[in-house]
C-alpha cells in the first residue's frame, strides 16, 4: 500500500496544508510519498522532506510546471500513478482544478473534500453546503481524493525523507499561462490564520473595510475574509470569500461583521472554535451559531472594539 500526496506550493514555499493532507494519507495507511512539481522549487522539496513519516519526496522540475496548469500537471501525476493506491491533494483551487482531470484519465470517480478517513476505501465528506455528511465507499482500484485541510491535524516536522528527482512528462500544449494578479497582504493567509474577521454586505465599500475591519484585524493579527455579497459588490477581492463555494476556514476565533449567516456562508466557517457575530438585526441567522452575539451598528461597535483591544 502506498499513497502519493501532491504538494501545494508556489515554487518558493510549501503550503501549510500539505502537512495536513499528509496526515489524511497516513490515516489511509501504507507508505506516504510527496510529489513536488514546479520550476526552481528544490527548497519546497526540502521543506516537504521534513514532514514526519514520509518515505520519500519526488521532485520534478520543468518550465511547464511553473504554474501547475491542469493539463501538463495532470499528465505528470498520471505518469506517476502506477506505484500508488491513492493520490491525495489538498482541496485548494489547484487541487480542485487538477485532481478531477487525473481521476478521469485514470477512469476513477474522485472523492472530493474528504473530512475523515474511515478505512482505506471509505471516506466522509460534506454535501449540500455541509448540511449533510455522507460516508462513501469507493469500488475503484485507485483512489483519487481531495482533502479539506481544516479537518486534519498537520503531521509533525521532524522527518528527513530522501529527495528523489523524477522525470517530467511531456506538455500536452493545450494551455498557456498569461498572467496572475495576486492579492498582496501583510496579514496571515485566510485558511491558515488563528483569527479571521470577515465583513459582509453591510460594510458598503472598500473604504469601510479599511476603516472598520482592517484596524481590528491588525490589532488581533487576524486574516480578513468576506461574504459573497461583499466580494460580488467589489469591496474586496474574490480570494476573500468564505463559504460553500469560496474558502473553508476553521480558526480559533471567527468574527462575522455585518453578515446575515446564509447557509452558503456558514458552510465555510461553522467549524471555527469560537464564533462572534456583530449584526444590527437580532433575528439574523448568524446569531444561531454564534457563541457571542453582539446586536448593534457595526459602525459604532468596530471603533469601540478597536479601542478595547
Amino acid at each position, binding site marked *: 500500500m502506498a499513497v502519493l500526496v501532491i504538494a501545494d506550493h508556489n515554487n518558493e514555499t510549501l503550503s501549510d496544508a500539505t502537512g495536513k493532507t499528509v496526515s489524511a494519507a497516513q490515516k489511509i495507511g501504507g507508505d506516504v510519498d510527496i510529489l513536488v512539481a514546479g520550476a526552481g522549487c528544490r527548497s519546497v522539496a526540502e521543506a516537504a522532506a521534513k514532514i514526519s513519516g514520509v518515505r520519500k519526496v519526488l521532485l520534478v522540475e520543468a518550465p511547464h510546471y511553473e504554474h501547475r496548469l491542469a493539463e501538463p500537471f495532470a499528465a505528470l501525476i498520471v505518469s506517476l500513478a502506477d506505484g500508488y493506491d491513492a493520490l491525495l491533494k489538498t482541496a*485548494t*483551487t489547484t487541487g480542485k482544478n487538477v485532481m478531477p482531470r487525473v481521476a478521469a484519465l485514470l477512469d476513477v*470517480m474522485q472523492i472530493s473534500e474528504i473530512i475523515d478517513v474511515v478505512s482505506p476505501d471509505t471516506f466522509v465528506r460534506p454535501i449540500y453546503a455541509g448540511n449533510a455528511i455522507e*460516508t462513501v465507499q469507493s469500488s475503484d482500484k485507485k483512489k483519487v481524493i481531495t482533502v479539506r485541510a481544516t479537518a486534519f491535524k498537520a503531521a509533525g516536522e521532524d522527518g528527513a525523507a530522501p529527495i528523489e528527482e523524477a522525470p517530467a512528462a511531456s506538455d500536452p500544449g493545450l494551455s498557456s499561462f498569461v498572467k496572475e*494578479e495576486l492579492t498582496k497582504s501583510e496579514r496571515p493567509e485566510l485558511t491558515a490564520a488563528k483569527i479571521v474577521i470577515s465583513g459582509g454586505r453591510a460594510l458598503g465599500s472598500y473604504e469601510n473595510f479599511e476603516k472598520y475591519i482592517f484596524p481590528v484585524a491588525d490589532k*488581533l493579527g487576524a486574516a480578513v475574509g468576506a461574504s459573497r455579497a461583499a466580494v*460580488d459588490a467589489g469591496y474586496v477581492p474574490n480570494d476573500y470569500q468564505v463559504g460553500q463555494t469560496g474558502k473553508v476556514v476553521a480558526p480559533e476565533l471567527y468574527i462575522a461583521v455585518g453578515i446575515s449567516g446564509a447557509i452558503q456562508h456558514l458552510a465555510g466557517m461553522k467549524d471555527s472554535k469560537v464564533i462572534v457575530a456583530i449584526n444590527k438585526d437580532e433575528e439574523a441567522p448568524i446569531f444561531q451559531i454564534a457563541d457571542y452575539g453582539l446586536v448593534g451598528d457595526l459602525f459604532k461597535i468596530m471603533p469601540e472594539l478597536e479601542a478595547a483591544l
Partner: protein
Amino acid sequence: MKVLVPVKRVIDYNVKVRVKSDQTGVDLANVKMSMNPFDEIAVEEAVRLKEAGIASEIVAVSIGPEKAQDQLRQALAMGADRAILIKTDETVEPLAVAKLLKAVAEEEKPQLVICGKQAIDDDCNQTGQMLAALLGWAQGTFASKVEKDGDKLNVTREIDGGLQTVSLALPAVVTTDLRLNEPRYASLPNIMKAKKKPLDVKEPSTFGVDIAPRLKVLKVTEPPKRQGGAKVASVAELVGKLKEAGVI
C-alpha cells in the same frame, strides 16, 4: 462556434436541507428544485457569446429525471437554441456524467463547453475537468472572465491567491465561478417561445456508457449541531469573554 451547456436540476439554494431519519440521503420530496446556480451563469455566458456574435448555436444538455425538462426549458427561455435530456432516475456520478457529455460532444462537435464549477447538491466540483480530460481538451476552471482571442480563449480564473489568466486552445471546457456574470431572468415572451424550441429526450443506454456508480453511499447524517445563540451586551463584555476563552 457551437457552445454546449450542461445544466443540472438540483435542490433550490434557498431550501433548508433535511437529512432522512433512515440515513439514506436527504429528503427531496416536495422541495423546490431549480437549475444549479453555476449552470445559470454558464447559460448566461453562452447567450452573451451569442449576442456578441461569437457563438452560433447553444445546445443545453441535462442528465437527470423527466422533470429536468423544466431546467432545460429555462435554459431555452434564457436563449439556448435547443436542448437534449438524457433521461434517468438513477444518481449519475460526475465521472459518468462526463462520459455521457463526451458522447454528446462527439456528436455535436461544439468548440466550447461551459459548465458550472460545482453542483450545490453533491458539491463535487469535478464534471467540467473530467470532461476536458476525456476529450483531451484544455480546461479553464472557476472562470470570472472569458474572452475569445483569435483562435484561442483567454480565461481569467478565481484562484486561492487572486486571479490567474490562462490561454486555451479550442475546443475547450470552461467552468463558471460566481463573478462571471449575473444571469438574466427569462421574459414571459421568451418563456413562451422556449416551449416551441426543440427538446430531444434520449436514454443513457443509447450512448453505450456505463453509468453504474463507483461510490456506494453507506450513510448520510446530520452535521454536528453547534450550540450557539448566546448574546453579550457590550464590547467590554465581548472582549472579556474572548479573553476568558483564551482566543485573544
